[in-house]
Protein backbone atom coordinates (compact mmCIF):
# COMPACT_ATOMS: atom_id res chain seq x y z
CA UNK A 1 0.00 0.00 0.00
CA UNK A 2 1.21 3.49 -0.87
CA UNK A 3 1.19 5.86 2.12
CA UNK A 4 -0.85 8.88 1.05
CA UNK A 5 1.15 12.07 0.79
CA UNK A 6 4.44 10.19 1.18
CA UNK A 7 4.93 7.13 -1.03
CA UNK A 8 2.50 8.35 -3.66
CA UNK A 9 4.74 11.39 -4.20
CA UNK A 10 7.49 9.22 -5.67
CA UNK A 11 7.59 9.84 -9.44
CA UNK A 12 7.63 6.06 -9.95
CA UNK A 13 5.22 5.10 -7.12
CA UNK A 14 2.69 3.47 -9.46
CA UNK A 15 5.46 1.52 -11.17
CA UNK A 16 6.64 0.22 -7.78
CA UNK A 17 3.13 -0.85 -6.79
CA UNK A 18 2.55 -2.61 -10.09
CA UNK A 19 5.91 -4.38 -9.72
CA UNK A 20 4.63 -5.78 -6.39
CA UNK A 21 1.44 -6.90 -8.13
CA UNK A 22 3.46 -8.67 -10.83
CA UNK A 23 5.54 -10.49 -8.23
CA UNK A 24 2.36 -11.67 -6.48
CA UNK A 25 0.70 -12.69 -9.74
CA UNK A 26 3.73 -14.77 -10.73
CA UNK A 27 3.11 -16.92 -7.63
CA UNK A 28 -0.38 -17.99 -8.75
CA UNK A 29 -2.71 -16.43 -6.17
CA UNK A 30 -6.06 -18.11 -5.59
CA UNK A 31 -7.59 -14.64 -6.01
CA UNK A 32 -6.29 -11.18 -6.79
CA UNK A 33 -7.49 -7.63 -7.36
CA UNK A 34 -8.39 -7.24 -11.04
CA UNK A 35 -5.64 -5.76 -13.20
CA UNK A 36 -7.76 -2.80 -14.28
CA UNK A 37 -7.61 -1.53 -10.69
CA UNK A 38 -3.80 -1.76 -10.44
CA UNK A 39 -3.48 1.54 -12.25
CA UNK A 40 -5.65 3.52 -9.84
CA UNK A 41 -5.85 1.82 -6.44
CA UNK A 42 -3.38 2.84 -3.68
CA UNK A 43 -3.45 -0.78 -2.50
CA UNK A 44 -3.16 -4.04 -4.43
CA UNK A 45 -4.21 -7.30 -2.80
CA UNK A 46 -3.76 -11.00 -3.55
CA UNK A 47 -4.66 -14.20 -1.70
CA UNK A 48 -2.50 -17.29 -1.36
CA UNK A 49 -3.17 -20.71 0.08
CA UNK A 50 0.16 -21.58 1.71
CA UNK A 51 2.74 -19.82 3.84
CA UNK A 52 5.68 -21.15 1.80
CA UNK A 53 4.55 -19.10 -1.22
CA UNK A 54 4.08 -16.05 0.99
CA UNK A 55 7.62 -16.55 2.29
CA UNK A 56 9.01 -16.68 -1.27
CA UNK A 57 7.16 -13.49 -2.19
CA UNK A 58 8.42 -11.77 0.95
CA UNK A 59 11.98 -12.79 0.09
CA UNK A 60 11.64 -11.27 -3.40
CA UNK A 61 10.08 -8.09 -2.04
CA UNK A 62 12.89 -7.71 0.46
CA UNK A 63 15.49 -8.13 -2.28
CA UNK A 64 13.81 -5.65 -4.61
CA UNK A 65 13.51 -3.10 -1.77
CA UNK A 66 10.68 -1.07 -3.31
CA UNK A 67 10.02 0.93 -0.12
CA UNK A 68 6.26 0.28 -0.20
CA UNK A 69 4.37 -1.01 2.85
CA UNK A 70 3.49 -4.70 2.75
CA UNK A 71 0.79 -6.20 4.97
CA UNK A 72 0.24 -9.94 5.36
CA UNK A 73 -3.01 -11.29 6.81
CA UNK A 74 -2.99 -14.75 8.32
CA UNK A 75 -1.91 -16.75 11.34
CA UNK A 76 0.40 -14.67 13.54
CA UNK A 77 2.61 -17.66 14.42
CA UNK A 78 3.13 -18.62 10.76
CA UNK A 79 3.82 -15.09 9.56
CA UNK A 80 6.21 -14.44 12.44
CA UNK A 81 8.29 -17.48 11.45
CA UNK A 82 8.08 -16.76 7.72
CA UNK A 83 9.33 -13.18 7.93
CA UNK A 84 12.03 -14.17 10.42
CA UNK A 85 13.36 -16.76 7.98
CA UNK A 86 13.85 -14.07 5.34
CA UNK A 87 15.55 -11.76 7.83
CA UNK A 88 12.66 -9.41 8.63
CA UNK A 89 10.71 -8.57 11.78
CA UNK A 90 7.03 -7.83 12.15
CA UNK A 91 6.58 -4.06 12.51
CA UNK A 92 2.96 -3.47 13.54
CA UNK A 93 0.02 -5.83 14.11
CA UNK A 94 -3.72 -5.35 13.89
CA UNK A 95 -5.13 -7.96 16.26
CA UNK A 96 -8.74 -9.07 16.07
CA UNK A 97 -10.77 -9.49 19.26
CA UNK A 98 -13.74 -10.87 17.33
CA UNK A 99 -17.39 -9.85 17.34
CA UNK A 100 -19.44 -8.28 20.14
CA UNK A 101 -23.02 -7.17 20.70
CA UNK A 102 -26.18 -8.81 19.35
CA UNK A 103 -24.57 -11.93 17.96
CA UNK A 104 -27.96 -13.59 17.60
CA UNK A 105 -28.33 -11.48 14.44
CA UNK A 106 -25.46 -13.35 12.78
CA UNK A 107 -25.78 -16.33 10.43
CA UNK A 108 -24.19 -19.72 11.19
CA UNK A 109 -20.46 -20.02 11.89
CA UNK A 110 -19.80 -21.90 8.64
CA UNK A 111 -21.60 -19.19 6.65
CA UNK A 112 -19.59 -16.51 8.44
CA UNK A 113 -16.37 -18.35 7.58
CA UNK A 114 -17.15 -17.56 3.96
CA UNK A 115 -18.82 -14.14 4.17
CA UNK A 116 -16.11 -12.66 6.43
CA UNK A 117 -13.38 -13.47 3.89
CA UNK A 118 -14.44 -10.21 2.25
CA UNK A 119 -13.61 -7.56 4.84
CA UNK A 120 -16.10 -5.20 3.23
CA UNK A 121 -18.77 -7.90 3.54
CA UNK A 122 -19.81 -7.80 -0.10
CA UNK A 123 -20.85 -11.48 -0.15
CA UNK A 124 -24.29 -12.06 1.36
CA UNK A 125 -25.15 -14.89 3.73
CA UNK A 126 -28.18 -15.97 1.68
CA UNK A 127 -25.97 -16.40 -1.39
CA UNK A 128 -24.14 -19.18 0.49
CA UNK A 129 -27.44 -21.02 1.13
CA UNK A 130 -28.45 -20.44 -2.49
CA UNK A 131 -25.27 -21.94 -3.95
CA UNK A 132 -25.24 -24.87 -1.50
CA UNK A 133 -28.73 -25.75 -2.80
CA UNK A 134 -27.59 -25.42 -6.43
CA UNK A 135 -24.54 -27.61 -5.82
CA UNK A 136 -26.68 -30.28 -4.14
CA UNK A 137 -29.08 -30.30 -7.05
CA UNK A 138 -26.19 -30.66 -9.50
CA UNK A 139 -26.87 -27.35 -11.23
CA UNK A 140 -23.43 -25.87 -10.51
CA UNK A 141 -20.01 -27.20 -9.55
CA UNK A 142 -18.45 -26.33 -6.20
CA UNK A 143 -15.61 -24.56 -8.01
CA UNK A 144 -17.96 -22.40 -10.10
CA UNK A 145 -20.06 -21.58 -7.03
CA UNK A 146 -16.93 -20.42 -5.17
CA UNK A 147 -16.05 -18.15 -8.10
CA UNK A 148 -19.57 -16.70 -8.09
CA UNK A 149 -19.38 -16.04 -4.35
CA UNK A 150 -16.00 -14.32 -4.78
CA UNK A 151 -17.24 -12.00 -7.54
CA UNK A 152 -18.60 -9.16 -5.35
CA UNK A 153 -15.24 -8.92 -3.51
CA UNK A 154 -13.44 -6.37 -5.67
CA UNK A 155 -10.30 -6.39 -3.51
CA UNK A 156 -9.51 -10.00 -4.44
CA UNK A 157 -9.04 -10.96 -0.81
CA UNK A 158 -11.76 -13.63 -0.96
CA UNK A 159 -10.05 -17.02 -0.66
CA UNK A 160 -11.57 -19.17 -3.43
CA UNK A 161 -9.65 -22.35 -2.50
CA UNK A 162 -10.82 -22.16 1.10
CA UNK A 163 -14.38 -21.43 -0.01
CA UNK A 164 -14.38 -24.65 -2.07
CA UNK A 165 -13.41 -26.63 1.05
CA UNK A 166 -16.10 -24.98 3.20
CA UNK A 167 -18.78 -25.41 0.51
CA UNK A 168 -17.93 -29.10 0.29
CA UNK A 169 -18.45 -29.42 4.04
CA UNK A 170 -21.74 -27.52 3.90
CA UNK A 171 -23.01 -29.67 1.03
CA UNK A 172 -22.12 -32.88 2.82
CA UNK A 173 -23.46 -31.93 6.24
CA UNK A 174 -26.90 -30.67 5.22
Amino acid at each position, binding site marked *: *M*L*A*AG*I*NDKYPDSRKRLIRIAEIMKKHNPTNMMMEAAWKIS*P*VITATFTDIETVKQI*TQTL*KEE*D*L*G*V*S*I*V*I*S*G*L*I*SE*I*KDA*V*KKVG*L*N*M*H*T*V*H*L*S*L*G*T*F*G*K*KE*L*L*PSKKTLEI*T*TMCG*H*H*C*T*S*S*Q*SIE*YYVKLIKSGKISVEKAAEKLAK*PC*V*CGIFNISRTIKILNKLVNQS
Partner: protein
Amino acid sequence: MEIKENLCTGCGRCIIVCPVQAIKIIDNKAVIDKNLCVECSICYRNAECPINAIKSRRLKWPRIIRNPFSDVIGTHKLTGIPGRGTEEMKTNDVTNRFRIDEYGVSIELGRPGVGTQLNNIELFTTKFSQIGVEYEPMSPVTAILSDDKVNIKDDIKDERVLSAIIELKIPKNKINQVLQVIREVEKEIDTVFSVGIVSRVMEDGSIPVIDILDQQGFKVNPNAKINIGLGRA
Protein backbone atom coordinates in the same frame (compact mmCIF):
# COMPACT_ATOMS: atom_id res chain seq x y z
CA MET B 1 -30.79 1.80 -5.38
CA GLU B 2 -34.04 1.43 -7.19
CA ILE B 3 -35.78 -1.46 -8.92
CA LYS B 4 -38.02 -0.42 -11.79
CA GLU B 5 -41.35 -2.06 -10.99
CA ASN B 6 -42.52 -1.99 -14.59
CA LEU B 7 -39.45 -3.94 -15.72
CA CYS B 8 -38.97 -6.40 -12.82
CA THR B 9 -39.93 -10.01 -13.55
CA GLY B 10 -39.54 -11.12 -9.93
CA CYS B 11 -36.73 -13.59 -10.67
CA GLY B 12 -35.13 -12.87 -7.27
CA ARG B 13 -31.47 -12.65 -8.35
CA CYS B 14 -31.11 -9.34 -6.54
CA ILE B 15 -32.43 -10.86 -3.30
CA ILE B 16 -29.61 -13.41 -3.26
CA VAL B 17 -26.77 -10.87 -3.46
CA CYS B 18 -28.10 -8.23 -1.04
CA PRO B 19 -25.80 -8.30 2.04
CA VAL B 20 -28.41 -6.79 4.36
CA GLN B 21 -31.55 -8.62 3.19
CA ALA B 22 -33.21 -5.40 2.12
CA ILE B 23 -34.98 -6.85 -0.95
CA LYS B 24 -38.18 -8.89 -0.89
CA ILE B 25 -40.65 -10.16 -3.45
CA ILE B 26 -44.04 -8.47 -3.08
CA ASP B 27 -46.78 -9.22 -5.64
CA ASN B 28 -44.20 -10.94 -7.91
CA LYS B 29 -41.94 -7.89 -7.98
CA ALA B 30 -38.64 -7.29 -6.17
CA VAL B 31 -39.03 -4.38 -3.76
CA ILE B 32 -36.26 -2.61 -1.85
CA ASP B 33 -36.95 -1.74 1.79
CA LYS B 34 -35.58 1.80 1.79
CA ASN B 35 -34.96 1.75 5.54
CA LEU B 36 -32.83 -1.40 5.38
CA CYS B 37 -31.02 -0.60 2.13
CA VAL B 38 -27.54 0.76 2.85
CA GLU B 39 -26.85 1.94 -0.74
CA CYS B 40 -23.91 -0.44 -1.19
CA SER B 41 -24.67 -0.94 -4.92
CA ILE B 42 -23.91 -4.67 -4.65
CA CYS B 43 -27.26 -5.60 -6.25
CA TYR B 44 -26.60 -3.15 -9.09
CA ARG B 45 -23.16 -4.63 -9.82
CA ASN B 46 -23.66 -8.32 -9.05
CA ALA B 47 -27.29 -9.42 -9.40
CA GLU B 48 -26.92 -9.95 -13.15
CA CYS B 49 -30.48 -8.72 -13.55
CA PRO B 50 -31.61 -10.13 -16.93
CA ILE B 51 -33.56 -7.03 -17.89
CA ASN B 52 -31.49 -4.32 -16.14
CA ALA B 53 -34.31 -3.34 -13.81
CA ILE B 54 -31.91 -2.23 -11.05
CA LYS B 55 -31.03 1.43 -11.35
CA SER B 56 -28.42 3.46 -9.53
CA ARG B 57 -30.16 6.72 -8.71
CA ARG B 58 -28.67 10.04 -7.66
CA LEU B 59 -28.92 10.22 -3.88
CA LYS B 60 -29.82 13.34 -1.94
CA TRP B 61 -28.63 14.49 1.48
CA PRO B 62 -28.84 12.92 4.04
CA ARG B 63 -29.36 9.54 2.37
CA ILE B 64 -26.20 9.99 0.30
CA ILE B 65 -24.13 9.51 3.47
CA ARG B 66 -25.03 5.79 3.35
CA ASN B 67 -22.96 5.21 0.22
CA PRO B 68 -19.37 5.84 1.38
CA PHE B 69 -19.98 3.71 4.49
CA SER B 70 -21.38 0.83 2.43
CA ASP B 71 -20.03 0.84 -1.12
CA VAL B 72 -16.48 -0.43 -1.51
CA ILE B 73 -16.15 1.03 -5.00
CA GLY B 74 -15.08 4.61 -5.23
CA THR B 75 -12.69 6.59 -3.14
CA HIS B 76 -13.87 8.46 -0.08
CA LYS B 77 -13.35 12.21 -0.48
CA LEU B 78 -11.68 12.56 2.91
CA THR B 79 -9.51 9.45 3.18
CA GLY B 80 -8.47 9.16 -0.45
CA ILE B 81 -8.65 5.38 -0.34
CA PRO B 82 -11.34 2.90 -1.37
CA GLY B 83 -13.70 1.65 1.31
CA ARG B 84 -14.72 3.00 4.70
CA GLY B 85 -11.46 2.60 6.57
CA THR B 86 -8.14 4.41 6.49
CA GLU B 87 -4.55 3.34 5.97
CA GLU B 88 -4.35 2.77 9.76
CA MET B 89 -1.50 0.32 10.49
CA LYS B 90 -1.09 -0.75 6.88
CA THR B 91 1.46 2.02 6.29
CA ASN B 92 2.68 2.45 9.86
CA ASP B 93 6.25 1.62 8.87
CA VAL B 94 6.15 4.80 6.76
CA THR B 95 3.85 7.11 8.73
CA ASN B 96 4.67 6.11 12.34
CA ARG B 97 1.01 6.81 13.08
CA PHE B 98 1.11 4.34 15.98
CA ARG B 99 4.20 4.79 18.11
CA ILE B 100 5.75 2.25 20.45
CA ASP B 101 4.01 3.83 23.48
CA GLU B 102 0.53 3.81 21.89
CA TYR B 103 -2.23 1.43 20.89
CA GLY B 104 -4.70 1.85 18.09
CA VAL B 105 -8.30 0.73 18.49
CA SER B 106 -10.78 0.09 15.70
CA ILE B 107 -14.44 -0.57 16.41
CA GLU B 108 -16.40 -1.50 13.31
CA LEU B 109 -20.11 -1.14 14.00
CA GLY B 110 -22.40 -3.38 11.97
CA ARG B 111 -19.65 -5.82 11.02
CA PRO B 112 -19.98 -8.58 9.97
CA GLY B 113 -22.84 -7.98 7.57
CA VAL B 114 -25.57 -6.79 9.94
CA GLY B 115 -25.35 -3.04 9.37
CA THR B 116 -25.90 -0.21 11.79
CA GLN B 117 -27.57 3.12 12.22
CA LEU B 118 -25.04 5.92 12.52
CA ASN B 119 -26.41 6.99 15.91
CA ASN B 120 -24.86 3.85 17.45
CA ILE B 121 -21.50 5.62 17.14
CA GLU B 122 -22.59 7.90 20.00
CA LEU B 123 -22.81 4.95 22.39
CA PHE B 124 -19.02 4.79 22.18
CA THR B 125 -18.10 8.44 21.72
CA THR B 126 -20.10 9.49 24.79
CA LYS B 127 -18.10 7.11 26.96
CA PHE B 128 -14.78 7.79 25.22
CA SER B 129 -15.19 11.49 25.96
CA GLN B 130 -14.76 10.63 29.65
CA ILE B 131 -11.47 8.85 28.93
CA GLY B 132 -9.91 11.15 26.37
CA VAL B 133 -8.96 9.44 23.11
CA GLU B 134 -7.48 10.70 19.86
CA TYR B 135 -9.68 9.98 16.86
CA GLU B 136 -8.10 9.25 13.48
CA PRO B 137 -8.48 12.58 11.65
CA MET B 138 -8.82 10.93 8.21
CA SER B 139 -11.58 8.52 9.25
CA PRO B 140 -15.02 8.91 7.65
CA VAL B 141 -16.55 8.50 11.13
CA THR B 142 -14.47 11.33 12.60
CA ALA B 143 -15.68 13.51 9.73
CA ILE B 144 -19.32 13.14 10.77
CA LEU B 145 -18.75 13.88 14.46
CA SER B 146 -19.71 17.32 15.69
CA ASP B 147 -17.05 19.62 17.15
CA ASP B 148 -17.41 18.10 20.63
CA LYS B 149 -16.40 14.69 19.18
CA VAL B 150 -19.39 13.09 20.92
CA ASN B 151 -22.47 13.58 18.79
CA ILE B 152 -23.29 12.63 15.23
CA LYS B 153 -24.68 15.47 13.19
CA ASP B 154 -28.45 15.48 13.73
CA ASP B 155 -29.61 15.08 10.15
CA ILE B 156 -27.71 11.83 9.57
CA LYS B 157 -28.23 10.05 12.91
CA ASP B 158 -30.89 7.70 11.60
CA GLU B 159 -29.12 6.78 8.38
CA ARG B 160 -28.30 3.09 8.05
CA VAL B 161 -24.93 1.85 6.72
CA LEU B 162 -23.19 -1.47 6.17
CA SER B 163 -20.52 -0.56 8.69
CA ALA B 164 -18.86 2.41 10.34
CA ILE B 165 -15.37 2.23 11.80
CA ILE B 166 -14.45 4.27 14.86
CA GLU B 167 -10.66 4.57 14.70
CA LEU B 168 -8.69 6.01 17.58
CA LYS B 169 -5.41 5.83 19.38
CA ILE B 170 -4.56 5.97 23.06
CA PRO B 171 -1.52 5.96 25.29
CA LYS B 172 -0.90 2.40 26.50
CA ASN B 173 -2.11 3.13 30.04
CA LYS B 174 -5.68 3.75 28.82
CA ILE B 175 -6.24 0.34 27.25
CA ASN B 176 -8.19 -1.10 30.21
CA GLN B 177 -10.59 1.86 30.21
CA VAL B 178 -11.28 1.39 26.51
CA LEU B 179 -11.88 -2.33 27.00
CA GLN B 180 -14.35 -1.49 29.78
CA VAL B 181 -16.30 0.73 27.36
CA ILE B 182 -16.49 -2.15 24.89
CA ARG B 183 -17.96 -4.40 27.58
CA GLU B 184 -20.51 -1.74 28.55
CA VAL B 185 -21.67 -0.91 25.02
CA GLU B 186 -21.94 -4.59 24.14
CA LYS B 187 -24.92 -4.80 26.51
CA GLU B 188 -26.70 -1.73 25.10
CA ILE B 189 -26.23 -1.86 21.35
CA ASP B 190 -28.82 -3.19 18.87
CA THR B 191 -26.29 -4.54 16.36
CA VAL B 192 -22.92 -6.28 16.26
CA PHE B 193 -19.47 -4.76 16.15
CA SER B 194 -15.96 -6.10 15.67
CA VAL B 195 -12.94 -4.86 17.57
CA GLY B 196 -9.30 -4.61 16.54
CA ILE B 197 -6.24 -3.52 18.50
CA VAL B 198 -3.18 -2.08 16.77
CA SER B 199 0.18 -2.49 18.43
CA ARG B 200 3.80 -2.12 17.45
CA VAL B 201 5.81 -5.33 17.72
CA MET B 202 8.76 -5.36 20.12
CA GLU B 203 12.28 -5.85 18.77
CA ASP B 204 12.33 -9.43 20.07
CA GLY B 205 9.14 -10.19 18.08
CA SER B 206 6.85 -10.23 21.10
CA ILE B 207 3.43 -8.55 21.30
CA PRO B 208 2.87 -7.79 25.00
CA VAL B 209 -0.65 -6.42 24.53
CA ILE B 210 -1.88 -9.98 23.89
CA ASP B 211 -1.24 -10.85 27.56
CA ILE B 212 -2.96 -7.64 28.72
CA LEU B 213 -6.03 -8.43 26.63
CA ASP B 214 -6.07 -11.98 27.94
CA GLN B 215 -5.95 -10.73 31.53
CA GLN B 216 -8.99 -8.56 30.79
CA GLY B 217 -10.91 -11.53 29.38
CA PHE B 218 -10.53 -10.68 25.68
CA LYS B 219 -9.47 -13.54 23.46
CA VAL B 220 -7.19 -12.55 20.60
CA ASN B 221 -7.86 -14.38 17.32
CA PRO B 222 -4.87 -16.37 16.03
CA ASN B 223 -4.94 -14.49 12.72
CA ALA B 224 -4.09 -10.83 12.24
CA LYS B 225 -3.03 -8.17 9.76
CA ILE B 226 0.73 -7.73 9.99
CA ASN B 227 2.84 -4.91 8.56
CA ILE B 228 6.26 -6.44 7.89
CA GLY B 229 8.23 -3.20 7.83
CA LEU B 230 9.31 -2.94 4.19
CA GLY B 231 7.91 0.56 3.66
CA ARG B 232 9.89 3.75 4.06
CA ALA B 233 9.34 7.46 3.67
